[in-house]
């Protein structure tokens, strides 16, 4: 087996994930009347309003170490653009036709950038519309705009995460990578061959064992 995520990375990922789910649910409760009932999960409307921004700040803060850890591995390379252009092969499981993929494929990289941008946008606009502490420092026209941008960022982020979660269900072995930390050599060979080559040539101790 090959180590893909350390215990620290897994912990960090799941803290962000849990914060995301709670922030998304509480945020949706405040966004659409049809979902206001979800506020019951958080102890009612006022509690949802109180908790949501704190959960959001927690998510943004918890994402910082994750971004620092994975940022360098998510730079777009020429082969990534080629990979994206062959999206038909990607969605039809014809991986043998695709260019070799490093630790992350272009789709994962785009998810990474979308999350970075959305979280940054949500944090900035969230502060502006945080009535209890900060809104009094901002002009009402800015608050109105921030509320709109906050909603847009949130929808883009939620859709991105739906894609992220689905991709993990679709590509078998990905969930284990983030829950147990390890992937099989075959998984790494098939989905991230350039990364497989790299770790095989670089690190002695992470070579696949016969067990």
């Amino acid at each position: 087996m090959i180590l893909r995520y350390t215990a620290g990375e897994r912990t960090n990922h799941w803290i962000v994930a849990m914060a995301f789910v709670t922030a998304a649910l509480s945020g949706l409760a405040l966004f659409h009347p049809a979902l206001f009932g979800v506020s019951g999960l958080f102890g009612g409307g006022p509690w949802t309003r109180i908790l949501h921004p704190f959960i959001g700040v927690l998510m943004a803060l918890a994402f910082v170490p994750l971004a620092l850890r994975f940022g360098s591995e998510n730079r777009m390379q020429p082969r990534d653009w080629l990979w994206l252009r062959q999206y038909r092969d990607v969605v039809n499981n014809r991986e043998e036709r695709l260019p070799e993929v490093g630790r992350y494929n272009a789709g994962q990289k785009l998810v990474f950038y979308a999350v970075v941008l959305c979280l940054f946008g949500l944090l900035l606009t969230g502060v502006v519309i945080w009535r209890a502490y900060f809104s009094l420092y901002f002009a009402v026209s800015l608050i109105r705009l921030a509320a709109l941008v906050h909603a847009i960022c949130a929808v883009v982020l939620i859709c991105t995460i739906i894609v992220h979660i689905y991709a993990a269900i679709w590509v078998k072995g990905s969930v284990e990578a983030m829950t147990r930390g390890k992937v099989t050599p075959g998984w790494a060979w098939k989905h991230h061959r350039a990364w497989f080559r790299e770790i095989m040539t670089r690190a002695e101790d992470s070579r696949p064992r016969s067990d």
Partner: protein
Amino acid sequence: MALQSLDIVRRSATTTRSPDIREPTGGREVAKLIDTTKCIGCKACQVACMEWNDLRDEIGTNIGQYQNPHDLSASTWTLMRFAEVETPKGDLEWLIRKDGCMHCADPGCLKACPAPGAIVQYANGIVDFREENCIGCGYCIAGCPFDIPRISKKDRKVYKCTLCSDRVAVGLEPACIKACPTGALVFGTKEDMKQHAAERIEDLNSRGFEHAGLYDPAGVGGTHVMYVLHHVDQPQLYSDLPANPRISPSVRLWKGISKPLALAVMGLTALAGFFHYVRVGPDETDERDEAAAQELAKQLEKSP
């Protein structure tokens, strides 16, 4: 917060019909008319409002101005705003405006509110906050084109003028109307108030105020608190009364099309995933991939 419940035409954060089975006798909209040309700035209306609603704002400081307190607050729902204006002719005009909720026909606060039933609009046109449903987010403050709702630091609920909906419901006029000594404040059906205003404006026009007129801004569908102004062409002279108030385009977008659109986009994204799984299926690794991996690993071991 008032007692009526069967003559609600609009309810915040509610996509189905409001309880509107009752058809109020006459079915007429009410309005308060504030004639700034008759106002002497005595603040009796402010006192009556405090008294009827049992509100006592904190005692502030005097900054050498008649306006007191300095601004609306959770405990000050109406406020005389005093503006000293120099006209182009060099005259000084003291323009006094009783500020408070305008009770818009198209209320920005109600549009922005995310809490079901925290803001309601009655058939008579009164826009009322029901604080027991308020969650304290302050979206109504962003939604209001007149800068009226104020959030309380004490209970984190928003408050504003109710147009004495409790009094109006039982056939009384609002407390401020009752207290006005000059007849600058009058209350009745909206039609009657427009009629009354027209008479006043005609009189003012004949006495040299050629720009006197009624302030009933169409941008918010008209209001249930209207002003007679000496200078209706320059409402901003009256302590920044907006010339063309309307619900901001950002708020319209945020609270309009974006809501169903966002739900649709999120739902479709999830559905796309589900049907991709059903049609294309999972991407799995098998023994051949493991064998190929071992093969490549062996090659790499030999080659360096």
